[in-house]
C-alpha cells in the first residue's frame, strides 16, 4: 500500500470535486454528473470512493462474514459522516478512515461474541485446497479465533496499532496519524500490543513471544 503518497493530502483539502486521499483518481473514474453533487455525495466521491476496497477488505479480514463486514463498514461510515470535517482536515485521512474501519470491525466481532451468534466463517473461508481436509480447516478456524480473541483482549488503540503495523504494513508515522497521537506513543502502542500478543499466542508462534524492538 502506498502510504507515502497518501500522506500528501493537505493541498487537496477543501475541494469539492477530485478532493480526497487518492487525489483526482475518483473524479477521473467516471463521467461528471449533470446535477451538482450534494456535500455528502461529494465527500463520498472525493474521500471514500477510493477507500471502498480498503475499508471492505480490512473489515473482511477481521470478520470473514459478508453480513458482519457490511454492517461494520456501515457503522464506520456513520462514524466518518459524523467526523467528516475532521477527516477533511486530517493530515492522513486514509489512515484515519482505515483505523475507524478496524475499530468498527473489532467492535462488531465483540458484539458477535457477546450475542453468541455463530459466524459462518468456515463457509466463507478461502477455498480449501485439494489436500485440505476438514481437520486442517478446523485447525485454521481455531487458530484464527485464537488470534482474534487475543487482539480483542488488547486495548482498542493497541489493537488498531498492531493491525495497522503488521496487517496493513503502516509505518509508525502513519500509525501515529491514524491514532492521532505522537509517533513515540504509536511505537509504544505497537510494542506493548506485540509483546502481549506474543505472550498470549506463544503456542501458535513461539518465536513471536520475544520482546525485542
Amino acid at each position, binding site marked *: 500500500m502506498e502510504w507515502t503518497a497518501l500522506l500528501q493530502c493537505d493541498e487537496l483539502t477543501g475541494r469539492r470535486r477530485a478532493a480526497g486521499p487518492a487525489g483526482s483518481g475518483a473524479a477521473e473514474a467516471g463521467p461528471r454528473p449533470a446535477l451538482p453533487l450534494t456535500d455528502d455525495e461529494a465527500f463520498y466521491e472525493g474521500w*471514500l470512493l477510493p477507500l471502498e476496497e480498503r475499508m471492505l477488505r480490512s473489515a473482511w*479480514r477481521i470478520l470473514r462474514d459478508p453480513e458482519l463486514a*457490511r454492517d461494520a*463498514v456501515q457503522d464506520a461510515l456513520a462514524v466518518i*459522516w459524523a467526523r467528516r470535517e475532521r477527516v477533511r482536515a486530517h493530515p492522513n485521512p486514509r489512515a484515519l478512515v482505515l483505523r475507524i474501519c478496524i475499530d468498527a470491525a473489532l467492535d462488531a466481532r465483540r458484539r458477535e461474541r457477546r450475542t453468541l451468534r455463530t459466524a459462518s466463517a468456515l463457509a466463507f473461508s*478461502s477455498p480449501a485446497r485439494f489436500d485440505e481436509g476438514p481437520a486442517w480447516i478446523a485447525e485454521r478456524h481455531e487458530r484464527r479465533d485464537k488470534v*482474534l480473541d487475543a487482539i480483542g483482549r488488547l486495548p482498542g488503540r493497541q489493537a488498531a496499532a498492531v493491525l495497522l503495523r503488521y496487517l496493513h504494513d503502516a509505518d509508525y508515522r502513519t500509525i501515529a496519524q491514524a491514532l492521532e497521537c505522537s509517533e513515540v506513543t504509536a511505537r509504544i502502542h505497537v510494542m506493548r500490543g506485540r509483546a502481549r500478543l506474543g505472550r498470549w499466542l506463544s503456542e501458535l508462534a513461539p*518465536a513471536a513471544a520475544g520482546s*525485542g524492538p
Partner: protein
Amino acid sequence: MTRHEDELRRLLREALPDDLPEELAQPLRASLRPAWGRAASAGAEATEPPAFGWVRALLPSAALLMVAAGALLHASAPPRVLAESLSLRKMVQQVTLCLAEAVAMRCDIEATDRDGAPRIHRIEWRSGQGTSVRTEDAGGALLATLHLPAEAARSLGLATLPPDATAPGLPDPARALLSPARVVGLLEGRWQAAPPMAASRREVSVFVVSGTGGSGTLRVTLDAGTSLPVSIESAAARQAGAFRSRCEWSLAPSGPSLVRSGPGAAESRP
C-alpha cells in the same frame, strides 16, 4: 524488522488473510454508497434542532446549576431551624423516657416568698411514697413541711392545682416539680433551643421552655449522660417569681447500683 515481528506478522496474515472473494466483494461494494446516504440522512436528522431546542439547550446549564446547588447544600451546614427541630425532638423524647424511669428525685428550689424573703424548698419524691417538701429560710431554719401522697403528687393536673392546695408559698413552676410526671408535663411540647451558654462538661444541653403557666420562660439544663434535667430556672433572674432549682435523680433503687443525675452523678454511677 526483528524475528519476533516477522513471526507475529506471519501469524496475523495467516490467521487474517486478505482473501475477500470477488463474488462477495461486488455486492458489498454496491451497498456502501447507499449506506453512506443513510448515514448522512440519519446524521442530519440527529443534528437537526428539535422543536423545543431551546429547552434542550438549557438542560445542561440547568443540570450544572443543580449539581452546583447540591454540592453547595451538601457542603454547607444543615438548615439551622430544621436541625434544631430534629435535635430537640430527639432530646425531648430521650428526656421523657428517662423521667419515666426515675424512681426518686430530689430538687432544691431557691425562690422568694410573697414578701420578698428568700426561701429554699427542698422537694423529695420517691416512687410509690409521694412527695415531701421542706421549706427553709436563707439561714437553713425549717419553716414548714408538707407531705403529698403519691397519687396527689402524680395525677393532679397543674392547671387544676390551686396554689395553696399542695405547697403553700411554692412558686408556680416549682409546684410543677413535685414529681417526674409533673416535670414531664412541664416540659412536654414546649422546647426551644436556647442561645449558646457556657456549660460544664457534663451539662452540655441547654434548652428553654417557654409559656409555662404564667411563669415565663424557663431554662432547662440537661445532664449529658442521663438526659435528665439537672437545673430548671427562670430565664430572667430578676423577674417577679423567679426561681432556681437543682435536681438529682435516681433511676434505680438506692444502693450501690444507684444511677443518679445532677451534681455528683458521675461518682455514683456503677
